[in-house]
């Protein structure tokens, strides 16, 4: 054991740091001011082995000062070796430090400190919570972490305590590794580990692992996997990480018994294949010794199926529209003129003329009233109009134009319809996305609620077990204590017997003790006192009011007697005589120092039955509790499995439905796009016929030049 084993408490360091000039040895630190807490005292950041303080020197340099509260064997040697080894490495994650073996004075004693560069960074859990949902950031950090583990592995180093508290993330996303107390470097081969690391980051194999380069193997995989899983599915953080918990997604209980772990089950059955595969791998690694674990191999990318809960990117024009807009319109088709159609024009004219004449004749013959005349004129006009339209309808270019116009009209209607369908589908998609998000959240909540209920149920069950078992434990302890006591008593009795026999050999004779003559010997004999074995002690009874105090001799029986003629002086002499023989008796080699084997066995046998009875009772109780507990955890696993399966099914069918609707939207958009194009083409064609019209035709009929 080293010289100093008792270290100051965190509170004592807080006191000492109030006077940096007195407590520090380093002149630079003597000028430093510690960062203060809300009460104005130096603010500590404590771990289990140390308290760390942030101080700023007069020159403005900021340091982290680590003050140790527990002894770490060979600390100086370890830090020197780590420092030498790290000096040669260029890595970004390391922090500079300086071990000062007598850096601080507390209550008149010096203790070591570690002066480190202050790392401006946040702890891993805080960082994760700040970046939840940022898939890329988390995946990138996982990559950085993988790089870090490979740096360490290549350099033959193990950190020994990889965990969220020792991984800090700087504002530029760089990872920083702190706390090198338990670090292994090759120069330390053969020494013992100082600690076993954070409990939620170790496989059960860690306890038996020595101190070597493979200490981090399991933690590496575990941390990497957790980061990747959170990156792929942020809801895992809400369902598996306990608020305020000192772990990422999994805890030591999950590795200790993978088959009953509901957390493991949720991960191994996860709908994202990369997660379920990595989870299965981590579960497998937890069952193997550290030395058998491979180095971390990071994923190149993570494959997450189209999440229905993510809104499509809505920036800029939709793809279908931009392609449409960008395309230059083709040159318009040549204008189609209204043909001459002499024949038809002529026939039209003749018909109209005929009708005029017929109308005029009718009016003359009938000589009708004004009203009838008007009606007839109108009729004539109408007939002329109808006839001319009929002739116009015979024009071939009009027939073509009409077909195009019809097509255009139809295309227009279809375009509008397609637009409406797309809008309906999009609305449907948005509604589904909202529903899916709500379902996912509800599922996450019910999983968390179930986990909490199960945890409480199991904890309460375990509590009941302990409450029942503890009294039996106490009984066993007390049986053992009673046995020890009885053995001691039996031995004491044996020793007493020996002493009595021994003392009986010395018979009091006159003149043997100065001042004790024949008469006193006789009076003593009258009370049965002849050897030192016949009395125990000499006492003075307090004299009552008006009485003298008397000397009494305490007999072996416990009764005390007053012996005539034995006053204070003789009593003291008697006591001395007895003590001298007693001392000698106790020094005799024949004095029994242990119970004879047979007696010992007798006593042990008697207690063994008692102990076995209680032990059997305890065992039966434990068996019973264990089987009930197994049933309980099975029920829990089943419940969780059901919920996880329902959730997975829902996610899967939602994904399918989402993909379906997204496909339909895109089909509808393609169709819409084609229709718009068609409509525009038709429109352009139609415009080529803008000279083919009834008006132009009539103008030609009425005012056109008449050619032969």
């Amino acid at each position: 054991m080293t010289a100093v084993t008792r270290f100051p408490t965190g509170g004592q360091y807080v006191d000492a740091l109030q006077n940096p000039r007195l407590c520090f040895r380093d002149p630079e630190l003597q000028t430093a001011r510690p960062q203060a807490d809300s009460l104005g005292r130096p603010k500590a950041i404590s771990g289990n082995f140390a308290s760390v303080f942030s101080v700023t020197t007069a020159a403005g340099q900021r340091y982290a000062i680590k003050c140790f509260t527990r002894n770490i064997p060979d600390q100086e040697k370890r830090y020197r070796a780590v420092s030498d080894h790290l000096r040669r490495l260029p890595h970004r994650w390391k922090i500079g430090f300086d071990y000062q073996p007598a850096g601080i004075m507390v209550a008149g004693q010096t203790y070591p400190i570690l002066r480190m560069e202050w790392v401006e960074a946040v702890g891993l859990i805080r960082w994760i919570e700040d970046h939840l949902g940022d898939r890329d950031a988390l995946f990138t950090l996982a990559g950085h972490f993988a790089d870090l583990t490979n740096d360490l592995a290549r350099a033959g180093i193990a950190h020994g305590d990889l965990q969220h508290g020792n991984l800090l993330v700087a504002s530029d996303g760089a990872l920083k590794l702190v706390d090198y107390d338990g670090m292994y470097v090759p120069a330390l081969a053969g020494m013992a580990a100082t600690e076993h690391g954070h409990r939620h980051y170790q496989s059960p194999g860690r306890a038996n692992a020595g101190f070597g380069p493979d200490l981090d193997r399991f933690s590496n995989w575990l941390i990497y996997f957790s980061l990747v899983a959170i990156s792929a599915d942020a809801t895992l953080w809400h369902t598996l990480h306990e608020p305020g918990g000192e772990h990422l997604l999994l805890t030591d209980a999950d590795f200790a018994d993978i088959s009953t772990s509901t957390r493991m089950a949720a991960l191994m059955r996860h709908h994202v294949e990369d997660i379920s595969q990595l989870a299965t791998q981590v579960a497998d690694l937890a069952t193997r010794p550290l030395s058998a674990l491979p180095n971390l191999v990071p994923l190149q990318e993570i494959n997450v199926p189209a999440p229905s809960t993510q809104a499509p990117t809505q920036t800029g024009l939709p793809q279908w529209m931009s392609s449409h807009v960008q395309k230059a319109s083709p040159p318009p088709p040549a204008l189609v003129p209204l043909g001459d159609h002499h024949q038809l024009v002529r026939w039209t004219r003749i018909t109209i003329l005929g009708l005029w004449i017929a109308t005029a004749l009718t009016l003359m013959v009938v000589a009708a009233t004004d009203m009838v005349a008007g009606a007839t004129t109108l009729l004539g006009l109408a007939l002329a109009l109808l006839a001319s339209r009929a002739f116009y309808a015979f024009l071939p270019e009009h027939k073509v134009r009409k077909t195009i116009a019809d097509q255009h009209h139809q295309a227009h209607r279809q375009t509008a319809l397609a637009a409406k369908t797309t809008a309906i589908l999009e609305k449907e998609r948005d509604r589904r996305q909202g529903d899916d998000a709500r379902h996912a959240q509800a599922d996450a909540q019910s999983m968390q609620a179930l986990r909490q209920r199960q945890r409480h149920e199991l904890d309460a069950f375990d509590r009941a077990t302990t409450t029942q078992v503890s009294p039996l434990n106490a009984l066993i302890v007390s049986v053992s204590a009673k046995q020890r006591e009885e053995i001691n008593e039996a031995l004491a009795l044996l020793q007493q017997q020996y002493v009595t026999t021994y003392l009986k050999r010395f018979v009091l004779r006159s003149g043997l003790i100065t001042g004790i003559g024949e008469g006193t010997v006789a009076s003593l004999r009258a009370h049965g006192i002849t050897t030192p074995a016949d009395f125990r002690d000499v006492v003075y009874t307090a004299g009552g009011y008006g009485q003298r105090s008397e000397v009494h001799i305490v007999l072996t029986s416990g009764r005390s007697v007053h012996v005539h003629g034995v006053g204070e002086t003789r009593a003291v002499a008697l006591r001395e005589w007895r003590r001298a023989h007693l001392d000698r008796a106790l020094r005799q080699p024949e004095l029994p120092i242990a119970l004879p084997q047979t007696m010992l066995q007798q006593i042990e046998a008697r207690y063994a039955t008692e102990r076995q009875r209680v032990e059997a009772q305890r065992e039966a109780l434990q068996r019973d509790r264990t089987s009930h507990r197994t049933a309980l955890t099975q029920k829990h696993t089943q419940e969780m499995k059901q919920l996880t399966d329902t959730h997975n099914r829902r996610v899967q069918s939602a994904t399918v439905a989402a993909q379906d609707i997204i496909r339909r939207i895109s089909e509808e958009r393609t169709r819409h796009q084609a229709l718009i194009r068609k409509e525009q083409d038709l429109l352009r064609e139609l415009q080529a016929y803008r000279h083919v019209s009834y008006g132009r035709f009539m103008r030609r009929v009425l005012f056109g030049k008449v050619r032969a």
Partner: protein
Amino acid sequence: MPYSAEISRSNPTCFVFLVDQSASMSDSIGGETPNSKAAVVSDAINRLLTELSVKCAKEEGVRDYFHVAVVGYGHNNVGSAYGGALAGRDLVPLSQIAENPARVEQRSKKVPDGAGGLVETTVTFPVWMDPVSNGGTPMRQAIEYAHHLVDKWLSEHPACFPPIVLNLTDGEANDGDPVVPAAAIQSLASADGPVLLFNLHVSDAGGSPVTFPDADAGLPDAYARTLFGMSSALPSHMRAYAAQEGFTVSEGTRGFVYNADITSVVQFLDIGTRASDLR
């Protein structure tokens, strides 16, 4: 294995301090600078609360690894002994304790200057409770009060590290035999093991200070022996820490201290999630 549960924000545990405030506590305890027993005990409590706060301090502040009650007994009544903003409260989350001492004193202290001399400096000393001493010693009632607090806590936190009840007293109970309720509170358990009852005995009976004994043979009087008898055995990892700090320990070592410093009890707790190799 019992006493291995993690102490963390998601698995907090509780501490109940029972403070004797009876009239006999005003007697002075010997030593270089004689001090009343009541002052010794309140200093011990204030120091324990400071140590707990420092031990649970992280970059963002003090974490609620513990909920702590300070229960005074004397003047024939039992109740919260907090002063200031926390007055009247029973179990208080540690972060609130750290933020709310009744006041912060400046205490002057002579410390070695490193060159063989002494210099006078001042250090701050947060105070949560002041010394009080009057009336009888309802220790039995106090332990029952703690029983009630701990029982309720356990039903809400069935798997926590077993709650620790620390009784600071001169031992002269006058409301009946404290051994019975002491046994009763130790029969409460979390999944991780039975409740721990530790005792700090401040006494003017003399004799040398005793820390974590495993037998009552060397104890000066019947009060000390009774308190020793009702103290729980130290769990194995605490025993290992005690051994590491130079105390001699055995299976029978108990959480009992006679006229000595009790703050090491806080040092022996594995806070956070460290599976220390001393288990």
